[in-house]
């Protein structure tokens, strides 16, 4: 176990969205535009890193019987911080993400990392794990939102908070609006995971042959 491997495992090998399949609700609900995806990813990463570090520091103090409520309080405190900060500095993004900011509390990724990793490992490793998993989540969310924003609106990288309309790739009238509606979220994510599965299988087959 090294700092570096803990940091990078979340990006691809144990990617929380595509490999462990955790935290699906915010993934599908907030991946409408790249700016939303990145915003949500950063918010979740901050909470994940903070809660991992605090849980790891307190791992010998928290009695094991009531550990889950303790973790939840730690996580909820960080979520409240993120919520207030975002409401102050990026109000439009905060409005779009809406209920999914407070819902970071029940994002399974964060509780799962606290329980499975931070409660058993030192502060430094937990920090690396938090950053890695958070970036993995952000990466997955950004990829998914890039696909949905492009197909659904015909533009890329629109950032309403800075008044930036985004790069126009094709005309809006040609865009498949269904992709940014709820069904598009389910189907795009399903196909994307299927695609990654088939790539992994092909790689494995090639390695065997």
């Amino acid at each position, binding site marked *: 176990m090294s700092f570096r491997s803990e940091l990078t495992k979340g990006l691809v090998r144990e990617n929380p969205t595509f490999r462990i*399949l955790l935290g699906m609700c915010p993934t599908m609900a907030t991946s409408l535009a790249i700016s939303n995806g990145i915003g949500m990813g950063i918010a979740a990463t901050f909470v994940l890193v903070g809660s991992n570090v605090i849980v790891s520091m307190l791992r010998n103090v928290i009695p094991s019987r009531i550990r889950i409520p303790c973790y939840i309080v730690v996580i909820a405190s960080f979520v409240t911080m993120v919520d207030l900060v975002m409401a102050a500095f990026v109000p439009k993004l905060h409005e779009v993400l809406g209920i999914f900011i407070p819902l970071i509390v029940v994002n399974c990724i964060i509780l799962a990392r606290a329980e499975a990793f931070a409660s058993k490992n030192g502060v430094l490793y937990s920090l690396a794990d938090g950053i890695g998993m958070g970036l993995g989540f952000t990466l997955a969310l950004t990829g998914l939102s890039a696909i949905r924003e492009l197909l659904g609106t015909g533009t890329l990288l629109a950032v309403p908070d800075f008044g930036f309309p985004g790069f126009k790739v094709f005309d809006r009238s040609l865009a498949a609006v269904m992709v940014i509606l709820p069904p598009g979220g389910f189907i795009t994510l399903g196909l994307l995971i299927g695609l990654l599965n088939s790539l992994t299988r092909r790689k494995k087959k090639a390695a065997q042959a």
Partner: protein
Amino acid sequence: MGEILVIFFGGVLLNNFILSRFLGICPFIGVSKQVETATGMGMAVIFVIGVASVVTWMVQYYILVPLGLGYLQTIAFILVIAALVQLVEMVIQKVSPVLYKALGIYLPLITTNCAVLGVAILNITEKYNLLEAAVNGIAGASGFALAIILFAAIRERMDLAPIPESLKGFPMALITAGLMSIAFLGFVGFRLKELFGVM
């Protein structure tokens, strides 16, 4: 009365938790292999969300608002919900062992169901009164139950279907849910307010 009906049908069909709001996807996919277990989960969720929407509403307006502690909402709600689920579990175990056996394993899972916290927060942001909050909670949870039971019925059939190896399991479940979501999108055309005479 009309407004209550609008909230109810809106919650079950138009703003279905799973298919249009993306709340509670984990149990939706995790506990939907069989119709029977899906029904159990659905009932447990209706019960817990119904109670939780009333209790969190009271916590918000009788404790947090008078004390000016609105910013503690997230922490307070999740703790209330976690405690509530435990309490409900213990009460059901004592009062009705049969029901406990039926719901038992699903109850602890509900704490991490984001639909519970989601509906509690939505009740506050939509500024519902106590009755409307309770109806909204029960309606949303009924929508969840409806979706998960229908989905389980589809998945039971799907076991026999030839599905490409890479799509088996989770990806196929998501695509199926997407198709169901398209069907539910059709309900958006309902003009509930006109139907129930609320202007």
